[in-house]
């Protein structure tokens, strides 16, 4: 039957458009460690990990203008709520669930506007380890809570691969060990994204690749770090009341990853 407007088709087109925009984004890995939470990624020229509020940070893949828009909305909502009530009342659950998700869902469904191209990863440091959490937020407003580990990438397969490499969450890891584990996951995810279209070809090569897998990872990362910069957002748990956001980059990380492979 012919219908002048098919909602499935329309949404499908928008979905395809957004997914195509996300496919080449540099993945972001979230991981817990003994001292707090980390968001780990490799960026190009633009900064990629941001502080949102006292205990919240954010990173995303997508179009820069859309990322900036979501970042600003999150920061403003958090600060307004923190001022009008208390910083203790600012939480990712409210921020993502009640402020950002409905707005993104509306924007995605609105045929009058170009869809928002974004996939975001938020981290929140709880008062105790049990309260730590990650939220992933998608361009269509869908969101999901994660504990201990989380990852966003350009494709579902890359995300699955990263979670696989990350393994079980371990809040006793040292900060540097957690960064190394996250970076290994990032490499796996980024490589998966690139090789995804040639799935068949890769299968044929498998015997040879297995032998060189670690070496290939090392070479891949080396290449990536020539044009990109390793960036780590670190929400440090200082005591029950106080948390601190640090942006780690450059020399600090050099020694951390020197013996990665």
């Amino acid at each position, binding site marked *: 039957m012919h219908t002048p407007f098919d909602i499935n088709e329309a949404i499908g087109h928008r979905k395809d458009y957004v997914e195509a925009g996300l496919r080449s984004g540099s993945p972001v890995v979230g991981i817990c460690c003994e001292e707090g939470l980390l968001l780990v990624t490799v960026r190009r020229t633009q*900064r990629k990990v*941001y*502080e*949102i*509020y*006292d205990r919240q940070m954010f990173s995303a893949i997508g179009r820069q203008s859309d990322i900036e*828009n*979501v970042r*600003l*909305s999150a*920061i*403003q909502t958090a*600060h*307004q709520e*923190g*001022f*009008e009530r208390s910083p203790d009342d600012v939480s990712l659950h409210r921020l993502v669930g009640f402020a*950002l998700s409905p*707005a*993104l869902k*509306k*924007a995605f469904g609105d045929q009058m506007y170009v869809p*928002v191209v974004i996939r975001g990863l938020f981290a929140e440091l709880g008062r105790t380890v049990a309260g730590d959490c990650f939220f992933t937020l998608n361009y269509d407003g869908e969101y999901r809570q994660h504990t201990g580990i989380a990852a966003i990438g350009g494709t579902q397969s890359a995300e699955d691969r990263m979670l696989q490499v990350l393994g079980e969450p371990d809040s006793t890891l040292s900060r540097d060990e957690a960064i190394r584990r996250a970076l290994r996951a990032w490499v796996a995810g980024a490589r998966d994204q690139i090789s995804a279209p040639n799935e068949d070809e890769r299968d044929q090569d498998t015997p040879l690749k297995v032998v060189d897998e670690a070496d290939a990872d090392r070479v891949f990362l080396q290449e990536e770090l020539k044009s990109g910069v390793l960036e780590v957002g670190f929400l440090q748990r200082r005591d029950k009341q106080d948390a601190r956001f640090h942006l780690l980059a450059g020399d600090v990380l050099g020694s951390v990853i020197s013996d990665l492979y």
Partner: protein
Amino acid sequence: MLSTTDTAGSLWKLLEQSGHPFTREAGSLRPADSHAGAGSIETHGTTVIAVKFKDGVIAVGDRRATANFAVMYDRADKVLAIDDTTLLAISGSFARAMDVVKYLRTSFKLFERTYLQPMSLEGKLTELARVVKAGIPDALQGIGGFIPILATFDKESNEGRIFFYDGMGARFESTEFGAAGSGSMQIRGVFDYIVKTVKPFHEMSRDEALKQALLLLDIAADLDAATGGWAKVMPLARTITCNGIEEVPDETLKAIIEQLDKSISR
């Protein structure tokens, strides 16, 4: 919706947009004659002092908050950290001062997180002037008047700096010291006397400056009915230096006060 660039980085604009009373139109909430008896519903912070020393600034306050002749609270903290490099010593309306402190803390953080760089010193001073100025209509009606002293460490010139305000929001920079609150007028000349007869505050060590500041506080308590001394509750002192803000430990205060008690002739 997501589009928010109109208010980016400005807490004031955000609050204005949402109609928050902090930024309400001047004098719109109360009729002009409502000040009768207003003093009795309002708690005031009394004397606060800030003096330079060779590594930065030291700010000292007694712990008293009063409403008319009643001592409302004797554990008030009137020397507050706004961020890692800014100390605010507050006097006058306690309610307004607490709102202002919360506003400034949030405003500075909002700016830094939005623009990925800290607000400049000039910007911070302007924010403070704006909120002092916004309190004028209230102050004219007899409540809400509030006078701050801002102390900071300027990393560019590598020195502590002290700024004080009048009720209109005019800002002045002091070379050596600042004081505000009910006991501040009574001790104004003493600061000058110390600078001229002992030595300038900025050449003193922390403990020397602390000793003079505590002595000044003691004189204020003697001459002003609303200022608490140190007999019952220890005053509160915080320093700001290139290493940030630190609270002076009670033991240090106690030791200096004991020394003073012995040497002061009553």
